[in-house]
């Protein structure tokens, strides 16, 4: 196991620890827990910063500390943040930023993440917030720590601190050439400081560690199988659990017979309200037991794919009074005067996140204290769910999030954690529960389905004059147009969704960009303009124009004309501080009507690049994930049941689906770094759809655009993938 676990042992078994809900420990606690050193906390409130330094006198520190950092006598730096790592590489990119400001080698920084007992409260890892918000917070703390180290060295040498230089984990006096390592300075010190966010930070143009392609932290553990994922956690005396699932959504239990299951050796059946599960010493017995439970369910009639879009459209009746969130000018008037008019409806089906590691949890009770190891993007949210479910105080619950097998927005909730905790409480022993793929496909939540309606008008010369965008159910993100249009109505219509739904990479920005950028392509075609020039004509945001130009240049946009067997498309947009433009080339087999994406060029800009290699990986991965939702991924469902709850039926992008991918990164060192895990997915579907249109003259208006078979209620796709 890693150093982190040894550290935890020290930290926890050393004595009492008041967790961060009521985070206040005094000097003695500090000494006991850390054995001295330098400790820097970042106050999240503006007025809370206090200079404690050497005069720290046992006063409690402010409760709302957003992150903290400790430098030990061996020079090792531990940084504590509630953010979690699920493949997006922030364990590495955040550590780079700390190393940069601290002027310490990258490998001296250890990130302690996503553990409700060790790290400050954090809402969760979503919305591309880690880089723009946690990054500057950690940099601020690291800059403050560096200053403390310099001051400490200056005091020891009796020199002016302004003459000293911090670099490579040392403070050096350039005059005398003497130097002290951070460990040497820290040894014997007991410095505590809480800082606010007004430290001067190193500009990106001067970065030496941030801004470089540092390899993934602990990368070796991922190629040797040593990394411990949530589903790999083992506790002494641990049992295995399995859960009885209803026959369908919204099912009512009519009768249940657990006697056969209870007769199995070593099996305990657990019933707790609507919840029924089984535990046993080994996994297969627990699974046999759950299968041996005879339950009769009544599953009510429910919508399916067949009537999905009608349901979504008519389900919006409830918000008839709701006002659009954005109105400008008069769309009606402008449409009357427009030379070119368009009115189109787009649809998107539900899709599944399908993280390769399904939900998993190990729960362990110690009296009325509960510890759960689980894969989640919101460890503190899962803690709250556990507190509520079991009616125990917050400080009795610890949720630990070992770096998990991805999430993509799909792991905000704590279902497996709750179920494992229920089973463990009844069994009186730690219990591991791993969801099966079928459970993950059925009982997690989905990327929302939606209906999007666009009405737009332009003048003959290509100037947009009217834009109306209605999104039913799929969401708000990325709904506003980046193009200049004087007359606008933009409205999101929340609807009661037939299936459980939630966050997904970029939220609704992928769906809204698909509709908007497809409609823009239609307008360009009607205006007989090049789709790129039509967009540029209606844009003034230089960052968006820059990515469009960069993608087009690398792609060779406009150099070759589309034919019936080879189409080119372009699309782009901006969301959450990221700017993206995507060019796609598709090949169409005239006899089989099979469409294949041959080449994708994507330009990306999100301010100053923290790690170009990690960023490239994220942007390229978003393109590949986008292929699934664009061409073939869709949840098939009817009567409260998912009909394709397996990889054999729910097609995922595979090696054979991957085109030639070229990522063009624009590094804006003059701009703050934005998150890059999500928005890279929004350009692919419309760029591919526009390429399909360019080749065939038929515009795909539903995601997925080219499934092998149509979902019930949908026309047969003209092209198949």
């Amino acid at each position, binding site marked *: 196991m890693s150093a982190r676990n040894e550290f935890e042992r020290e930290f926890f078994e050393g004595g009492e620890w008041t967790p961060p809900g009521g985070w206040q420990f005094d000097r003695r606690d500090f000494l006991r827990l850390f054995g001295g050193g330098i400790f820097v906390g970042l106050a999240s409130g503006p007025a809370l910063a206090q200079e404690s330094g050497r005069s720290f006198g046992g006063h409690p520190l402010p409760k709302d500390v957003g992150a903290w950092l400790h430098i030990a006598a061996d020079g090792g730096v531990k940084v504590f943040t509630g953010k979690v790592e699920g493949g997006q590489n922030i364990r590495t990119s955040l550590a780079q930023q700390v190393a940069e400001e601290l002027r310490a080698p990258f490998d001296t920084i250890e990130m302690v993440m996503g553990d409700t007992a060790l790290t400050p409260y954090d809402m969760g890892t979503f919305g591309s917030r880690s880089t723009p918000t946690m990054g500057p917070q950690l940099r601020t703390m690291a800059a403050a720590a560096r200053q403390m180290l310099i001051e400490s060295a200056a005091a020891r040498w009796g020199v002016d601190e302004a003459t000293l230089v911090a670099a490579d984990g040392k403070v050096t006096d350039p005059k005398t050439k003497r130097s002290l390592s951070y460990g040497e300075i820290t040894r014997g010190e007991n410095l505590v400081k809480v800082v606010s966010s007004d430290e001067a930070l190193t500009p990106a143009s001067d970065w030496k560690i941030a801004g470089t392609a540092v390899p993934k932290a602990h990368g070796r553990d991922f*190629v*040797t199988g040593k990394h411990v*994922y949530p589903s790999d956690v*083992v506790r002494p005396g641990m049992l295995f659990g399995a859960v009885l699932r209803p026959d369908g959504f919204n099912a009512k239990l009519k009768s249940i017979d657990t006697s056969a299951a209870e007769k199995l050796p070593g099996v305990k059946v657990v019933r707790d309200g609507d919840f029924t599960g089984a535990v046993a010493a080994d996994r297969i017995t627990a699974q046999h037991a759950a299968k041996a439970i005879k339950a009769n369910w009544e599953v009510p009639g429910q919508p399916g794919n067949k009537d999905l879009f009608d349901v979504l459209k008519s389900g919006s009746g409830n918000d008839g009074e709701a006002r659009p969130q954005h109105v400008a000018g008069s769309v009606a008037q402008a449409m009357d005067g427009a030379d070119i008019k368009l009115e189109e409806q787009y649809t998107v089906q539900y899709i599944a996140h399908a993280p390769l590691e399904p939900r998993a949890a190990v729960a362990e009770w110690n009296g009325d204290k509960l510890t759960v190891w689980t894969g989640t993007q919101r460890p503190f949210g899962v803690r709250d769910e556990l507190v509520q479910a079991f009616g125990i105080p917050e400080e009795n619950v610890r949720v630990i999030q070992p770096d*998990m097998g991805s999430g*993509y927005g799909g792991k905000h909730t704590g279902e497996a954690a709750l179920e494992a905790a229920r089973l463990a409480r009844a069994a009186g022993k730690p219990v591991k529960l791993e969801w099966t793929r079928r459970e993950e496909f059925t009982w997690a939540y989905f990327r929302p389905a939606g209906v999007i309606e666009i009405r737009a008008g332009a003048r003959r010369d290509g100037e947009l004059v009217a834009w109306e965008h209605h999104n039913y159910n799929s969401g708000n993100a990325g709904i506003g147009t980046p193009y200049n249009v004087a007359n606008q109505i933009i409205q999101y219509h929340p609807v009661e969704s037939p299936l459980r739904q939630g966050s997904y990479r970029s939220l609704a920005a992928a769906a809204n960009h698909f509709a908007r950028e497809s409609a823009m392509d239609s307008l360009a075609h009607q205006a007989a303009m090049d789709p790129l020039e039509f967009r540029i004509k209606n844009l003034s945001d230089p960052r968006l124009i820059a990515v469009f130009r960069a993608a087009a240049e690398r792609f060779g946009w406009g150099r070759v004309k589309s034919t019936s067997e080879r189409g080119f498309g372009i699309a782009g947009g901006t969301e959450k501080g990221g700017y993206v433009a995507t060019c796609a080339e598709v090949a169409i087999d005239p006899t089989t009507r099979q469409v294949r994406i041959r080449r994708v060029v994507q330009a990306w800009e999100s301010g100053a690049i923290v790690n170009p290699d990690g960023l490239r990986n994220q942007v390229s991965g978003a393109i590949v*994930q986008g292929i699934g939702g664009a061409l073939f991924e869709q949840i098939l469902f009817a009567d409260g049941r998912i009909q394709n709850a397996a990889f054999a039926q729910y097609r995922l992008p*595979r090696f054979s689906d991957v085109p030639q991918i070229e990522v063009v990164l624009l590094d804006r060192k003059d701009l703050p770094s934005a998150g890059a895990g999500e928005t890279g997915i929004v350009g692919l579907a419309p760029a591919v759809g526009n390429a399909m249109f360019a080749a065939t003259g038929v515009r795909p208006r539903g995601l997925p655009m080219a499934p092998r078979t149509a979902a019930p209620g949908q026309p047969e796709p003209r092209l198949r993938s």
Partner: protein
Amino acid sequence: MGKFVLNVNGASVSVDAAPDESLLYVLRDQLQLTGTKYGCGGGQCGACTVLLDGRATRSCLTLVAAAAGAKIVTIEGLEHGGRLSEVQQAFLDEGAFQCGYCTSGMILSATSLLRGKRNPSDDEIVAGMNGNVCRCGTYPRILAAIKRAAQLKAQGAGR
């Protein structure tokens, strides 16, 4: 329950398991070889891939009884004396992962592929690896890593 003797990563181990127990869960739950992952339980994603007598095999579909007598190699068995295999090294060099959950299966499938084909073309790699899913979408890097591994192996053999 039955007793089975398995040869795992060069060592002979005796396990008690139900006859319908999969090799995957004997490795994970009994032998604590958790580098082998569950992804789908149906042989459709490749996360559980191990080598059986050198050939990539889905351990989730392999009954423990069927694995007895074969030489089983898991991701934990590829490193020798602190030295990574060429395929492991190439994945590390190329940064061919994001969350890393598919990586063990990818590496073992690639190891098997490179046993059969020393210098596979892109098409051969795609055909050989198409049963392995990377939901993070790092396929282009994995492809590059496999080509790099082929080079590393060729260099190693030439020494």
